[in-house]
């Protein structure tokens, strides 16, 4: 039996909604099949008021073992570093986070806000939000760069806006069943099993990417969304086209550009007008290239690929 506690900081509850929609395994499977004891969760917890506070204090003191501490939402430090804007069970949430992270066997950040600060940390960041161990790309965050949970791992970051339901439950199951030591994390604390490949990996529009045929309007079935509509699939690490959403689709398959929500910079360009759903260019060349590609090579490849494109690539075609 592994005790799991889930708390929310500066959050919209999107990751909770995602978690509750998990299928492989489902949230119920965690309890019935994998022996996870959900001590408390904002949408599922039964304890209220003093009883909740008593339980939290029991966890902090070590009286109740905390095997998995899941945090959703940013750590709110406003105003002036006090954290008073986000109080919970009688004190600033950030104080609970500090105390609980010290006693947790594993600490898991779910969603962009908990991992890197996310939308709340977008400039000018009025809530003084940070992620658990990162603020955007900078290591540190609330717990500091040296933080390790009692199991010896840094914060396990499961980013996304929201994170895919099964990314959450599969990682929770891994740590609850004693396989946490098998997890390998990238430089941003993301499990490599999910975040090494790109969103583009498995995208059904890859043939249009290859032949440089662009989608120019939403809803077009043909065309790649990278060239004009701001898709970040070629430079975003996520398995969105490997572990499908609702078991059947993804943003790019449905004609919606990837917004890069598993990367620390999300939301990109601080949401400045004209930067969302529009590929940013400098002298007609994309500002952000597919990872590992340089400008000269990109121009040469594009010219050659476009010249070689077959007629069918320009026609309306089912890519779902």
């Amino acid at each position: 039996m592994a005790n799991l506690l889930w708390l929310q900081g500066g959050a919209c509850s999107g990751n909770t909604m995602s978690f509750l929609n998990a299928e492989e395994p489902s949230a119920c499977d965690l309890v019935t099949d994998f022996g996870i004891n959900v001590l408390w969760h904002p949408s599922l917890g039964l304890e209220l008021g003093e009883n909740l506070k008593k339980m939290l204090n029991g966890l902090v003191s070590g009286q109740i073992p905390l095997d998995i501490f899941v945090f959703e939402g940013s750590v709110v430090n406003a105003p002036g570093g006090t954290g008073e804007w986000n109080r919970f069970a009688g004190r600033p949430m950030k104080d609970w986070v500090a105390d609980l992270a010290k006693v947790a066997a594993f600490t898991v950040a779910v969603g962009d806000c908990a991992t890197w600060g996310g939308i709340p940390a977008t400039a000018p960041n009025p809530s003084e939000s940070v992620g658990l161990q990162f603020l955007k790309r900078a290591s540190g965050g609330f717990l500091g760069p040296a933080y390790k949970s009692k199991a010896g791992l840094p914060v396990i970051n499961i980013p996304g806006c929201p994170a895919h339901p099964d990314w959450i439950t599969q990682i929770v199951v891994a740590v609850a069943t004693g396989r946490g030591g098998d997890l390998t994390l990238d430089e941003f604390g993301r499990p490599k099993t999910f975040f090494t490949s790109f969103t583009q990996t498995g995208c059904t529009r890859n043939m249009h990417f290859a032949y440089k045929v662009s989608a120019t309007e939403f809803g077009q079935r043909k065309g790649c969304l990278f060239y004009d509509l701001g898709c970040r699939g070629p430079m975003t690490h996520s398995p969105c086209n490997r572990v499908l959403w609702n078991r059947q689709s993804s943003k790019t398959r449905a004609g919606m550009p990837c917004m890069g929500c598993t990367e620390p910079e999300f939301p990109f360009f601080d949401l400045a007008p004209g930067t969302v759903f529009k590929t940013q260019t400098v002298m007609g060349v994309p500002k952000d290239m597919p990872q590992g590609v340089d400008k000269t090579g990109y121009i040469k490849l594009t010219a050659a690929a476009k010249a070689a494109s077959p007629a069918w690539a320009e026609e309306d075609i089912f890519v779902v």
Partner: protein
Amino acid sequence: MDDDKKRENIRALLSDQLKTEVFPRADTADEVNRVVGRLQEVRGDLVRRLIIGGVTAAPVVHGDIDQACETCMYFLVHRRYCELPELDIPVEPNWSCRLWRI
């Protein structure tokens, strides 16, 4: 009017001293948005679209980059057509405009 007739019509306009806004090129996102915004106001007016888009019947080299239609993302190779919704015109591979992007 089919694409070939439209293309010949545009070719005639461009060779008949139609002065289009070839420069400044839309080098930044702000400039792209500004030009596209102006084009959206003249959707039904072909001549105004050609002028604002800076369409030319010859390629333009800008910043050491040959900005010809044939390498542009909006160009449909087999139809010889510019699919940018705000321009939406038949073109030739060696033409150009200031909204070129690769």
